[in-house]
């Protein structure tokens, strides 16, 4: 009797081996399909106007790039245009903007060579004279055929990119007088 019961163990094991219950659990993860809602997504969008704790966007300088009615000429409080910040901006710029605007900002990116409308160069006078808040605004709200990047690039990174664009503009219009004594000596020596 006992022996026969023991035989059941491998039999049951053989039966359960093919079940996938734990592989595909009855729960939803991000981006899964659900027939319950009309757009087919299991994940629900936030209710309009929802604000997470600590995410109230009160500061127009930081979140709209504006001081009063005009675009801000400075970075918002809390940001410092030091080397680390600019390098961060460079890395982000190279991901999100170079496909169209090109590495140096002349509007000659790869996608443009495949027929996308060419964006203006950052080094024309009109854009060189724009305050830094303007670039933040273009990224946030888009401009003409360029779509908004607000959903892809967080606010901090957008300011880093804006600062980096300013650095790019300075770099393409620099004169010898902008270079410090020490660096000028190096250039004269032909070293780097």
């Amino acid at each position, binding site marked *: 009797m006992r022996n026969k019961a023991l035989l059941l163990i491998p039999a049951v094991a053989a039966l359960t081996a093919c079940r996938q219950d734990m*592989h595909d659990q009855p729960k939803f993860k991000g981006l899964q399909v659900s027939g319950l809602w009309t757009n087919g997504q299991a994940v629900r969008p936030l209710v309009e106007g929802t604000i997470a704790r600590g995410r109230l966007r009160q500061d127009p300088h930081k979140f709209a790039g504006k001081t009063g009615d005009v675009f801000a000429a400075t970075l918002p409080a809390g940001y410092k245009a030091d080397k680390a910040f600019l390098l961060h901006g460079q890395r982000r710029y*190279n991901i999100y903007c170079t*496909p169209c605007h090109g590495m140096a900002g002349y509007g000659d990116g*790869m*996608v443009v060579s*495949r027929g996308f*409308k060419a964006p203006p160069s950052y080094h024309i006078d009109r854009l060189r004279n724009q305050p830094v808040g303007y670039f933040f605004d273009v990224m946030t709200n888009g401009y003409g055929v360029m779509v908004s990047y607000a959903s*892809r690039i967080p606010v901090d990174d957008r300011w880093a990119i804006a600062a980096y664009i300013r650095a790019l503009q300075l770099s393409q219009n620099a004169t010898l007088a902008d270079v410090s004594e020490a660096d000028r000596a190096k250039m004269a020596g032909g070293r780097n």
Partner: protein
Amino acid sequence: MAQIFRPSANLLAKSSIVGGAILVAALGFGLDTLFRSPYNTNVRVARDQPVPFSHKHHVAGIGIDCRYCHTSVEKAAFAGIPPTETCMSCHSQIWSDAPMLEPVRESFRSGKPLQWTRVHDLPQFVYFNHSIHVTKGMGCAVCHGRVDQMPLMYQENTLFMEWCLDCHRQPEKYIRPKDKVFEMGYKPAEDQSVLGARLVQEYKVRKLTDCAVCHR
């Protein structure tokens, strides 16, 4: 009473013991081969997608960074699949009449997301997190292969537990400098045994093999 077994049955009995053992081994081997074959693992089996999206054209051809589309890969567990708006930032202008892209435009008009076929799919009792791997110097190509050469996405590795553990036991064999994580054709500049040991120290990489790391 007549003999049921002739003397030759002795040989048969003996060889059936060996034969049985061989049969069991062969069955085991066969099952294991089947288990590891693309039939079960889908390794290198390209999947059909609603739009024939080509990483080869977009990554190698136009040089778009992974993060342009997989935006959360550095910050979250989930790498992120781009929403239709991301495609439309270029395809509102280029290839905007191509019939191939009609599902993208339809999705943009109706607000109904595209349904991509999942390629990598771990069982749900396994926890995986992209951000830690990316910040500790594990390149996309180590796990996903040469994505820039895939006209259609396929899975490069089995995603078996032994595959995860192989690296968790000896991360120094696979680690690379952090700024090379997104590079596809990466080759170590110096001997991997020297570089790996140094980077593991520098990035303070632990050897995580506790069950609860992945089964939580």
